[in-house]
């Protein structure tokens, strides 16, 4: 109650302040109002966007409070009792959480190490192609998998990796007809290699687009100067192309580092089956929250994950600015 009164007083004083100071600038105030009235159509055009962002982005934010409350569906976000860090503590007591964190970090780190450099290399190789038609066909084919959904990619993998699929056929052809056929997607040991391979297959080609654009923007005079100084194509690549695209590479890397604590839910969840039960943080959130209805616990887990992702992005941006003077802000 007292706080409400305080607010009221504050508002009144604010209002009177506003009046007092605007007396001198009453002209500019009415000009603003006139301008806004004249532009009312523009505000009408913006209204749906403002509404959508408010409802679907800002309105869920108070829901984060659920992480610190004893959430009761009937009392709602505001009415439920505060429990402090109870749920945060519960998160760390979840039996599968340690494993999920380790798996998340392991998969993200390996994906970063394998899938981040791959498109840069591929872009450099594509850039060396002089046959225009071949280059265009190659790009068309390499970009294709990006446009399929992750679940379709997994469906394709089920055909390709199947006991009677081409991969097993090749193994039989290489190692003899009595080789045992392997179910690659129903084996825990193949899980991480599968995640990496499918990520590489789907995204490497498409990720070259941004690097190719960056390579195309390099000033040709630099290459000519290097050529005159006796640098071959390889040396030109090392000393001109790579340093020139470094800002782009760093920006992409910052985005990736911010994602280190996230994982590709669609891929991991899609690949889980009775034989493969690796859990990552996002699958734990889904299973605990949506399937089990442990709202407070999974909100707390999601909150921790979001916080770490934010800190990682800020830290990566800071480091990148220090080292290469390029960042995303």
């Amino acid at each position: 109650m007292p706080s409400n009164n305080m607010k009221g007083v504050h508002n009144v004083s604010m209002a009177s302040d506003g009046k007092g100071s605007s007396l001198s600038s009453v002209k500019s105030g009415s000009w603003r109002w006139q301008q806004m009235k004249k532009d009312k159509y523009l505000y009408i055009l913006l209204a749906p966007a403002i509404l959508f962002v408010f409802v679907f982005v800002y309105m869920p934010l108070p829901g984060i409070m659920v992480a610190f409350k004893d959430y009761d569906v009937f009392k709602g976000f505001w009415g439920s009792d505060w429990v402090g860090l109870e749920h945060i503590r519960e998160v760390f007591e979840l039996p599968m959480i340690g494993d999920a964190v380790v798996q998340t970090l392991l998969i993200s780190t390996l994906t970063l190490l394998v899938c981040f450099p791959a498109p840069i290399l591929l872009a450099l190789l594509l850039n060396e192609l002089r046959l225009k038609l071949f280059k265009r066909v190659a790009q068309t084919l390499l970009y294709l998998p990006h446009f399929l959904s992750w679940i379709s990619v997994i469906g394709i993998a089920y055909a390709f990796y199947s006991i009677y699929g081409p991969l097993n056929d090749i193994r039989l052809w290489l190692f003899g007809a009595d080789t045992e056929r392997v179910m690659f997607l129903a084996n825990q040991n193949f899980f991480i290699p599968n995640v990496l391979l499918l990520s590489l297959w789907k995204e490497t080609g498409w990720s070259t687009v941004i690097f190719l654009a960056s390579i195309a923007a390099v000033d040709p005079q630099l290459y000519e100067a290097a050529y005159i100084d006796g640098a071959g194509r390889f040396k030109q690549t090392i000393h001109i192309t790579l340093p020139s695209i470094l800002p782009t590479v760093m920006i992409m890397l910052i985005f990736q580092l911010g994602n280190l604590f996230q994982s590709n839910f669609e891929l991991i969840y899609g690949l889980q089956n009775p034989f493969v039960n690796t859990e990552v943080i996002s699958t734990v959130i889904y299973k605990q929250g949506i399937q089990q209805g442990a709202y407070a616990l999974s909100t707390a887990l999601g909150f921790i994950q979001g916080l770490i992702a934010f800190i990682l992005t800020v830290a990566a941006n800071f480091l990148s600015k220090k080292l290469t003077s390029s960042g995303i802000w």
Partner: protein
Amino acid sequence: MKITGTGFRIFTICNIVFLGLLSLLSLYPYLNTVAVAFNDGQDSMLGGITFFPRKPTFGNFATLLSDDTIIRALLISIAKVVVGTSIAMTVQFAAGFALTKKRLIGRNVLLLYFIVPMFFNGGLIPVYLLYSKLGLLNNFLVYVLPGAFAFFNVIIIRTYLYTIPVSLEESAKIDGASELTVMWRIILPLSRPIIATIALWTAVTHWNDWTTTLNFITKPSLHTLQFKLMLMIKENDMIASLVQEAAQRGEANRAGMIRVTPEAIRAAQVIVTTVPIILVYPFLQKHFINGVLIGSVKE
């Protein structure tokens, strides 16, 4: 620039061979899935299906499409794409157009209001709880409303609109056109390329999305094609019943030989789910690259 030298020539040949193989590898798993989908299910179990079906048949597709729920899922997917993309384009184009006006009072505050969400979000569960309160769970609207505004798209539209000469707009205004007339009659027709780009972009995202169904839909009548594929991959019950039905029908025809297998049905479902993407792919590639390049240009 002239480049010579044996070393470089060897590299060029190796490069062409390597990239050629890589491109083939990019396409081949899909081709193999097509072959399996059109091949006799029992025959596929002998192995050795590579590029073409060995015993061509439409049986797998016939079995798959005899299931009414698949047809319904297809319709839901199409509705999701059409309605979702229309709403998103209307909202985003209107906002992008309004935000090009530098004189707009409160423009910077609005930009901040739109940018902040790029860094913060409530997370899955707060969103779930909000949707349940708004009545969006098990509601078709959950497919088309939440994704309607993406600030990234608005920035791209705005960047494009800046390239349209201001003089066009000014001369129309001298002739007495209002702001809305200018947008409708001049800016909109000139923006066709960027609208096509972002509409395709949004349509593909809508078509490929299945986690919305996973998170917010439990009613089978609202399942999409992608979600059906997920069910076929993760849950064997559905596929088993399809095969069983086919077997019962097959008994009358082919003396007890079950021709369709779960693997073949699954492959057919992958094809049904991806075929729209493959059909529009030639347009997609061009427009997506344009979009990425406009988007990556810093303001």
